[in-house]
């Protein structure tokens, strides 16, 4: 479990990025941190692997206080995939990129080989293993960045805007990847403003506004709370908006579900 207790963080220029965040991330859970740019989302997740340390309050990762542990120790448990893959990728080939952290963690060569193959296949990158990461498209780079973290199987996988630049097919794959990792006991924490994706994944949602958690709850509840969403510069998913226009409850996220619901209502509506 990761526990954030009344976490405050201030950047050197005086910006108060986090103002008393308390949050509990259970083992094998899934959380989407949502809010507008500048609301503190990225600052928050940088606290999970100790890249940033609270100026007040504390963060405990499986009981380990991040102020007393090194980033190297924490990274083993908490793998962070940055928003911009260009900030993360540097190796000559995709394969080396994925192997690099594994070498750093001291995995034996045959284990490294096995995990690199596994991660390449998992993210559909096998064809690119000998290519330079820099020659890939934005979406492909993102997948390499994810593969290089997933390969060391951190207990907590933290992703900053994982759907950025990904098309619909890739988003579905990402959703399946999350499901698979969760079945294997991992927790997924993602920062996103992709409301449709968050709705489809049905993660628990934390809305962050001006460095504070404004709301926390199941996707169905938070992503249909129009007023709260507006404060976080988000819009409700299309089907939620549609059902609100129709004054029909409860909110639905899936097209099939919406179809069933409307057909049922239509049956009743007919004289």
């Amino acid at each position, binding site marked *: 479990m990761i526990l954030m207790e009344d976490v405050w963080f201030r950047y050197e220029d005086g910006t108060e990025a986090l103002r008393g965040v308390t949050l509990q991330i259970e083992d094998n859970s899934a959380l989407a941190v949502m809010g507008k740019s500048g609301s503190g989302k990225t600052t928050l997740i940088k606290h999970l692997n100790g890249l940033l340390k609270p100026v007040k309050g504390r963060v405990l990762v499986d009981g380990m206080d991040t102020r007393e542990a090194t980033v190297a120790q924490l990274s083993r448990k908490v793998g962070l995939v940055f928003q911009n893959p260009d900030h993360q990728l540097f190796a000559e080939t995709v394969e080396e990129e994925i192997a690099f952290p594994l070498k750093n963690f001291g995995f034996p060569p045959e284990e490294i080989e096995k995990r690199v193959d596994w991660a390449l296949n998992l993210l559909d990158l096998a064809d690119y293993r000998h290519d330079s990461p820099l020659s890939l498209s*934005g979406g492909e780079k993102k997948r390499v960045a994810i593969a290089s973290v997933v390969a060391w199987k951190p207990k907590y996988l933290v992703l900053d805007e994982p759907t950025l630049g990904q098309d619909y097919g890739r988003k579905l794959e990402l959703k399946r990847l999350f499901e698979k990792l969760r079945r294997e006991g991992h927790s997924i924490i993602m920062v996103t403003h992709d409301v449709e994706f968050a709705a489809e994944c049905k993660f628990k949602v934390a809305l962050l506004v001006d460095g504070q958690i404004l709301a926390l709850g199941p996707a169905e509840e938070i992503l249909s709370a129009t007023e709260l969403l507006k404060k976080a510069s988000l819009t409700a998913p299309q089907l939620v908006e549609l059902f609100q226009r129709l004054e029909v409850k409860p909110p639905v996220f899936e097209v099939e579900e919406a179809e069933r619901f409307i057909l049922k209502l239509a049956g009743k509506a007919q004289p």
Partner: protein
Amino acid sequence: MAIIEAQSLTYKYPNSQKPALQNINLKVEKGEFVVISGPSGCGKTTLCRCFNGLIPHFYGGELQGEIRVNGLNVKEVSTAKLATQVGLVFQNPENQLFSLTVERDVAFGLENLGLPPQEIRRRVDWALNLVGLSGLKDKPPFELSGGQQQKAAIACVLAMQPPIMVFDEPTSFLDPLSAREIFNIIAELHAKLDLTVIVVEHRLEFLTAHASRLIFMDEGKIVLDGKPREVLKEASESFSGKIGIPKVALLHRRLTLQGISLGSTSLTVDELAEPLRRMLHP
């Protein structure tokens, strides 16, 4: 005359086996608002790079067929010359902004054109005003929000007054409300100015209602091309697993198949809500 005309355009990046574009035939008339979508790697960004000559002049590779932009043969004309015809706004505004103030960023391209100072001032004010950033002109770009940065990047391109503006996934770094704002600004610019607009985008929910034409690409080819409503109807039948078709369009299709008559494909929530409401609350 078409402002962009591509004939049998096929392109391979250097050291690449597979062509990124395969036999593209495309005519864009002056004043159109074209949205191009399709899965990653489908060639949509590559196609945009042909419009302003980054392909073949910067990326190299092998370009076959013909492409003309405002009468200029892209293969023969320099990127500097093409830059006056086609303004390109990128995905990540951070890659486009670098000065200490927004105003200076917008002036930079104009200074390079060697325009007189009064003209530069006039155009900077004009462009910042159009994107609604006049109040922030003295701010450093890195202090702006993502949405404001993207507006600044648009102003930089706008100030050059190119007849064609190309936006390559302009909102993928932005939150939904800022994304809507950017789409509204693009639509406003298109309506106010004599512009041809091309937007490459995954996020179709808020954009298709503004567009006059929607193109889907897949594996380097144009697979669907037409009025947004018609293209979305076809796409929801044949490409729904590959492309993020807006959910209202998908729901519209499923309900229509069930015999509910809802008129032509809905582009927005309102367009679907209205007939449904009439049906459910007669």
